């Protein structure tokens, strides 16, 4: 416990979290501080490219082993199944309608790249190593959750009587499939991972001055921007309601615990366990919202974006990351 408080305090006083807080404050006070949209999108692409490339390069260094294959299967399994749990909670405790519950559930099976990146920064600052292939796990967790979300929505619709019609329409329209598999973030993350893998150490030497040295500082700036977005979304809390809001706080803990235990079970290091917990705990706010807007237009985007971006994201950033890390160390020490 003591250790967790220390970790949490250290985390709170990191430039990353403080820039995030600055952003939230400025956004909330309606300051006109804003990164230009192009810069914001550019930074987001930078993070995908950098984290992907480094993960690939590290995988090239470590080689592909049996453990890794198991880890990748675990990632896919988590992404497919977590939405079922989330959906159940949203329907029962959250008292949400079918469509919104399915849409939100999909977000929590997927991941937040920035939370992951912030967690690697957290580990890096403390000199805690982690398995490079966790990045590959992240890439694999981006999209399966979307399938589960759509299946949940369809099952509910068909149970509600429109059965025949619902089952006849394909689960994925062409547009949704494109949004999911050809989403810029997914393509860049996976592609950079592959290139990092293919070019290995040599490639990393070329890319390092841009993607390694300034990496943590760029995260800090990006978190400023995320803070601004969160701060500007605070008025939308009204649209969310406290039952769903609470879900945004307890779901990451539940998901994080599942991630933690399963990653520990398959033998990852404390650093790796922390990161898998973060993946399971975090919710997508780029890829999944875009897919849901297309596939489940009746679901309210103000709810699912606000929940994943303005509730779960700050929770993980400020409380979750040190919490999961403390738990991972405890687990390792047992």
């Amino acid at each position, binding site marked *: 416990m003591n250790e967790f408080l220390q970790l949490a305090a250290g985390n709170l006083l990191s430039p990353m979290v403080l820039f995030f807080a600055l952003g939230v404050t400025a956004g909330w006070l309606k300051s006109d501080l804003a990164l230009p949209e192009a810069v914001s*999108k550019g930074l987001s692409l930078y993070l995908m490219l950098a984290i992907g490339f480094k993960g690939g390069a590290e995988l090239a260094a470590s080689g592909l082993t049996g453990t890794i294959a198991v880890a990748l299967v675990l990632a896919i399994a988590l992404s497919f199944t977590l939405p079922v749990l989330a959906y159940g909670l949203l329907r029962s405790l959250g008292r949400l309608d079918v469509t919104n519950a399915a849409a939100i559930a999909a977000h929590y099976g997927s991941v937040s790249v920035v939370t992951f990146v912030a967690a690697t920064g957290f580990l890096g600052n403390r000199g805690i190593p982690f398995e490079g292939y966790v990045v590959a796990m992240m890439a694999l967790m981006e999209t399966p959750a979307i399938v589960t979300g759509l299946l949940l929505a369809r099952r509910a619709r068909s149970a509600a009587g429109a059965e025949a019609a619902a089952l006849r329409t394909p689960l994925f329209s062409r547009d949704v499939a494109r949004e999911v598999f050809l989403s810029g973030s997914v393509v860049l993350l996976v592609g950079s991972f592959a290139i990092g893998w293919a070019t290995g150490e040599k490639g990393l030497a070329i890319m390092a001055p841009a993607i390694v040295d300034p990496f943590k500082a760029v995260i800090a700036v990006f978190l400023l921007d995320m803070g601004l977005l969160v701060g500007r979304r605070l008025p939308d809390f009204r649209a969310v309601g406290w039952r769903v809001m609470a879900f945004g706080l307890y779901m990451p803990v539940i998901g994080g615990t599942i991630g933690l235990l399963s990653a520990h079970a398959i033998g990852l290091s404390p650093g790796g366990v922390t990161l898998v917990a973060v993946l399971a705990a975090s919710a997508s*706010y780029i890829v999944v919202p*875009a897919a849901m*807007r297309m596939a489940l*237009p009746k679901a309210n985007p103000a709810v699912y974006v606000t929940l994943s971006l303005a509730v779960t994201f700050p929770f993980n950033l400020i409380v979750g990351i040190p919490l999961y890390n403390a738990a991972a160390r405890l687990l390792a020490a047992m």
Partner: protein
Amino acid sequence: MQLYKKKKLEIIVEAARSRAIIEMVEKAGAHGYTVVPQVSGKGNRGVRDDAHLSDVFRNVMIIVIAAEDIAHRIVDQSQPLLEHYAGIVVVSDVEVVRDEHF
């Protein structure tokens, strides 16, 4: 110079729906269209003004100049496409120089 009467459609719609609308516009027989890529706004579905992370809260404005019958076809076919999505369709009278162009 001789001018010809046409209709102008201005379709303001969330970015997620723009591809579907443009495909429909072309199938309906319009000879062209213009897209203003990023507009913000407020309507019945609340404020739409935040294009930073995804396109979920971005609007676009699609402008189509077309003959009256085609314009009306587009108006009709736009309605089902806009169900559940933020979007409006505005029609007005315009004149153009080259009749056959539109």
